[in-house]
């Protein structure tokens, strides 16, 4: 029988479709939580309204803008690599990574403040505040916590890509990895775009 050599198989479109499909799973994951939020908000409108006032709108807004900027720089890194500008690509990626860290630091302080006031899942203080508050803060910690976890994952992914760009593994004619990493980052931004108003703004 004829020798059959496996030809190296590169299909950028397949990679991209795969990444989008993965993004769909994340959308559905958070959709489940948004469903829970909607139901409990519907059933506890006053309590949710009042509980939301506990959250610091200023930090929330700052964090939102931070994430939006980081989304822009992630998108810009693709333009840079398409133009073959390795240094600019790295700068944009670096800014994205930096902003992600700032977001997490803000989150850390936000949560810390809540914990020090006795507001955390399962706390007695929370239980005493009533059902609406328990549900609001349960959802708040769970959803922003899960989101923060995704930020950490995104950080790792983009950091890996950063080094691949530096090693020129990812370059002007082979950058689907960067595109996919950026897509993931935009997803993280998208989730926050909805989290922000639902927890901070509907007071």
């Amino acid at each position, binding site marked *: 029988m004829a020798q*059959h050599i496996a030809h190296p*198989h590169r299909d950028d479109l397949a990679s991209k479709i795969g990444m989008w*499909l993965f993004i*769909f799973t994340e959308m559905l*994951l958070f959709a489940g939580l948004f469903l829970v939020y909607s139901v409990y908000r519907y059933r506890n409108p006053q309590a949710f309204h009042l509980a939301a006032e506990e959250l610091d709108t200023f930090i929330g807004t700052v964090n939102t803008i931070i994430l939006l900027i980081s989304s822009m720089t992630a998108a810009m890194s693709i333009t840079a690599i398409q133009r073959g500008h390795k240094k600019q690509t790295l700068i944009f990626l670096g800014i994205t990574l930096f902003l992600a860290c700032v977001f997490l630091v803000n989150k850390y302080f936000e949560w810390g403040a809540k914990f020090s006031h006795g507001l955390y*899942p399962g706390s007695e203080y929370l239980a005493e505040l009533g059902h609406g508050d328990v549900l609001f803060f349960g*959802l708040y910690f*769970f959803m922003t916590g899960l989101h923060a976890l995704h930020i950490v994952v995104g950080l790792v992914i983009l950091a890996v890509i950063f080094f691949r760009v530096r090693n020129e593994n990812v370059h002007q004619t082979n950058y689907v990895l960067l595109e996919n990493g950026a897509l993931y980052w935009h997803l993280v931004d998208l989730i926050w775009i909805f989290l922000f108003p639902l927890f901070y703004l509907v007071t």
Partner: protein
Amino acid sequence: MVAMHDREYTSFYEEKGRFKGLFAWIFSTDHKRIGLLYLYSIMVFFIIGVILGLLMKLELIAPGRTLYGAQAYNSLFTVHGVIMIFLIIIPGLPATFGNFLLPLQIGAEDVAFPRINLLSWWIYVFGALLVIISLFTGGGAPDTGWTFYAPYSFKTSTNMLPAVLGAFTLGFSSILTGLNFIVTIHRMRAPGMSWLRMPLFPWTLYGTGWIQLLATPVVGITLLMVAAERVLNIGFFDPALGGDPILYQHLFWIYSHPAVYIMILPAMGAISEIIPTFAKKTIFGYRAIVLSTLAIAFVGYFVWGHHMFTSGMSGTALYTFSILTFLVAIPSAIKVFNWVSTMHQGSINPEIPFYWAASFIFVFMIGGLTGLVLGSLATNVHVHDTHFVVAHFHYVMFGGVGFAFFGAIHYWFPKMFGRMYNFNWARVGWLIFFIGFNTLYGPMFYVGIKGMPRRYYDYLEGFTGPNVISSIGAMVLVLGLLIILGNLIYSARRGPEAEANPWGGSTLEWTVPSPPPLLNFDKVPEVTTGPYVYK
């Protein structure tokens, strides 16, 4: 298409790669080996699940405490359900036959992401072991039922976390398999194979892939919330903290209903492959079957509430779900009609895969029709949580998916192992299994209507007769299983060598040697017609 059969070739078994022995298998990215890895692991876990089921039937052979009491029985039906559903039927056909056959049927070398494919299997094994471990550790095996209903699932002192996290892990395996298959089908069909020239089994893998992708995350997040309840006392589904247990049910069934279509669609796909081959006639209504597949996948997302008719939902929800449930039955019925029409005036080759396909139609119809009884609000109230439900879902899941699985293994066995099994033992096994199956589950419809509840280790004296019959049926079924599996396992190593196309099949997998070489096709196939073309 001329079969390329020349014994002077290297089958994928003989291919020497980087690794040796066991590692050549568990580190292989070859879709054929991964499919077999799934087959072997699923068979092992299936045997555990069968043993648990058998232990249940032994308890139910007489009223009162027969072998053990309520707690043990509750754990038995819980772990039996978790294993059968999450470890066996959901991965079932896609992970085994999907992996082995999909690239072959579309003329490709492998799937789109072979390394992710291997990762899927590793995740599967890890998740399965977590579930098995829950049987033995901590506060005792889970006793909530496979449905993990709140609030009991976070109040029970039994070992819920391994079971819940095991199911969560298995979800990832399912998602990645679905993702892989969707991309494979979009991007790797051979030249000339347009969407409407693709065989029906890949079509069902496509529909199934979307359900795996989109529905599984919902149960994933739900299980995480249950874990958060247990660990953090977070309050999502705890009425004492303001949560709504019915919301848990909504979230759970938003996945678990589409999950049954993950189970049955590939099964239907396998039947759509077998019948044309054994009727030597092209499938009746190819497009209708394609559309039905997509319709089932789509409408199947919107009927989950029929598992919750007695839970306390609003009237509006009740009749909306009931109507949608009746609607989703229609495409399934269309498929049955088309299969039977394919057989009509065909030239039937009555070999064992055909026996399984024909008996599939019989048991699936019983399961499907009894589903209508359950989908109808008034009758549902009467039979909900009785053995009627148990009978219904075993007829569709074990009857439907199980029979299709056995049909598929007997159909594709020569291709996968390069050997043929003994036909006489296969027929005997089939007959005994068929008799055992109906004896086991048939009486459950009767006692269910008469009021015997499910998930109880005891029952009223008057139900004894049918329960004895049912439990004897279980033993007959297991005997049939042993014969079938014994025949297949023996023949995989010692059966006579099989040719490339022993059944006269018309799809691409039959054009390569049995078993196939590593990269499947010598030359990329050029497809000029649709499938199921016979002279």
